[in-house]
């Protein structure tokens, strides 16, 4: 098992390298530069800026510089948020995004899973239709519609929670963003759990349990094991996406997470910021895919890693 993890982590390095290379050259090919303003800078100022950030060097040399800095764990200075290094930006924003994402994920698994199981046990009954309808609703309504509605209802009309802002992470401020983040995930998890459960409930071992009249919790426990596989493999990439923040939610609720960095970085040609975000997201995806495979082995004893 330990050996397997090490091998997987090692094999992630070439993938990461490819991702870094492709995105480095892609963002550089994009027209425009980090210092383009509405009113162009003076030629001399521009030249000096480019010299400071080593943008005057040939591209392959810049690539080399970036890679060697990356080896030392240095993601470089931000071009747009002057006075900050990319490391500092992430150190501040990542915990915030991760906290919101993790809570939303937890909510998705618990609520979505429960709804899915209930629906599966009551297949083709009103409860089932209600869950399926709710799930379809959660999948189709975009976050940027849900968020303003929540703001109006719970923020302005009922004034239970603040409409936006972070306020140093007060719990009250996190409720609405977490709900917005969780809703589509709850929907997907509920749908997947329902579909998988229906399949498992028809299988021989569960039918035997039911025929023997075992209590419901026992049946659910046995069935869940089989139904969890597809849900877990969905949750891997979903967790990576949730933990690295959401542009829409962070913009609407004014949360200082890292979700906005991707869009802001790409639009302002903040090369290092874009690269940093790509790397962070890629690492999350790789780690969570590994975690998914490990959880597989826990759930399904037939899966073995040597």
């Amino acid at each position: 098992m330990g050996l397997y993890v090490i091998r997987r982590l090692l094999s992630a390095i070439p993938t990461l390298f490819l991702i870094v290379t492709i995105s480095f050259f892609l963002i550089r090919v994009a027209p425009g530069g980090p210092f383009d303003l509405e009113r162009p800078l003076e030629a001399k100022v521009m030249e000096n800026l480019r010299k400071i950030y080593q943008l005057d060097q040939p591209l392959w040399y810049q690539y080399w510089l970036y890679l060697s800095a990356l080896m030392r764990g240095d993601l470089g200075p931000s071009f747009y948020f002057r006075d900050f290094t990319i490391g500092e930006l992430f150190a501040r924003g990542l915990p915030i995004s991760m906290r919101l994402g993790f809570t939303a994920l937890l909510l998705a698994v618990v609520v979505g899973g429960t709804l899915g199981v209930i629906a599966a046990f009551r297949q083709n009954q009103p409860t089932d239709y209600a869950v399926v309808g709710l799930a379809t609703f959660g999948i189709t309504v975009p976050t940027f519609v849900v968020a303003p509605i929540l703001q109006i209802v719970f923020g302005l009309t009922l004034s239970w929670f603040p409409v936006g802002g972070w306020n140093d992470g007060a719990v009250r401020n996190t409720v609405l963003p977490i709900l917005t983040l969780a809703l589509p995930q709850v929907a997907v998890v509920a749908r997947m759990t329902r579909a998988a459960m229906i399949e498992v409930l028809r299988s021989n071992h569960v039918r035997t349990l039911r025929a023997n009249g075992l209590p419901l919790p026992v049946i659910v426990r046995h069935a869940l094991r089989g139904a969890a596989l597809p849900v877990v493999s969905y949750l891997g990439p979903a967790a990576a996406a949730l933990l690295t923040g959401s542009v829409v939610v962070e913009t609407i609720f004014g949360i200082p997470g890292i979700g906005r960095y991707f869009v802001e970085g790409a639009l302002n040609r903040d090369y290092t910021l874009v690269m940093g975000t790509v790397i962070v997201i890629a690492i999350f995806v790789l780690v969570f895919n590994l975690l998914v495979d490990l959880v597989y082995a826990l759930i399904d004893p037939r899966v073995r890693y040597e």
Partner: protein
Amino acid sequence: MSDVSTPDTVAAALSTSAPVKGRSLWADARTRLVRNRAALASIVVLTFVAIACIVGPLVTGHDYDQVYQDYVRVPAQWQAYPTPDQIGPAVDRIASRMRAKVESQQVTGDTLRVTLTAPRAIDERLLVYFERSDLFRTAKVVEKADEGKKLVADVPIKRNHFLFGTDSNGRDLLTRTLFAGRISLAIGVLATTVAILIGVLWGATAGYLGGRIDNLMMRAVDVLYSLPFIFFVILLVVFFGRNFVLMFLAVGAVEWLDMARIVRGQTLSIKRQEYVQAAEALGVTTGGILRRHVIPNTLGPVVVYMTLLVPKVILLESFLSFLGLGVQEPMTSWGVLIAEGAKNIQGSTWMLVFPSIFLTGTLFCLNFIGDGLRDALDPKDR
């Protein structure tokens, strides 16, 4: 006659009737789809939405970019504008521009009789201000008194319907929502077509040729897969800027990865079938086998995936529009309208509600159709 066939009737039927007509996969799927009520209702609703979007902007009586300065952010209502309480202030405004005072005004039916007074003689030509407003048509002088210092005029009222209200520039929201639907649906279909074309060709080729070529082609897919998708999209926006057709061709060119994987998997099993081996033995070319045997047989999952990809692309477009990277004014899409509605949600809820209903309704329908098709085409579930 009962529906239960006895051996006699079966034998009779076998001896006399015409040869039994086989049911093709597609005919079978169609009957099963029609039996699925949610899917059928979705097809009807979606057809209705599509027709409304195509024809609607022509019959609403407004242009999608026509600005009514006097009707900025008016709420949705069934009755025609202007409302009675809008007329008074409007007349006052016009009168003050004419340097006159309103002595009396009275509305009968669709005409307004207004009496204006001024310290000096009123220039009749200034009545053109009525015409310039969005509320009235050409005014007609009925009576002049006091050497022109008093003027009575009949002004026909211009009735306008804004069933969905207007936006913050005073444009009819119904027309804009329907027009936006054209763009959103077109984008969905366009990008999906591109994605399907590339994905099917790539997957079928890789799967059928196999070996090293397959390995190489699928490795490329894997690498593209691990790049954050939104990164690509934003870069594409940066490259292609405001040309949205080009941009969505490009989005389609990114969305083909799943398709390629699905089709490759299908192809791998199809190429082991006897009819493919027979075709090979007969000397049919690789391209011929792909066209005649492989691709038609992969179409089931492709169609399902396609109906699920269209809503995905429409959502993606609205997401980009929300970030301000999508379709540019005065063109519009559901995403643009929703983004604007979200900004004005306090006080002008209708600006968010109507486009959202159209968008989510369409996505709902497409999802139900996709699910229905999957059930209909699933050979396990007879």
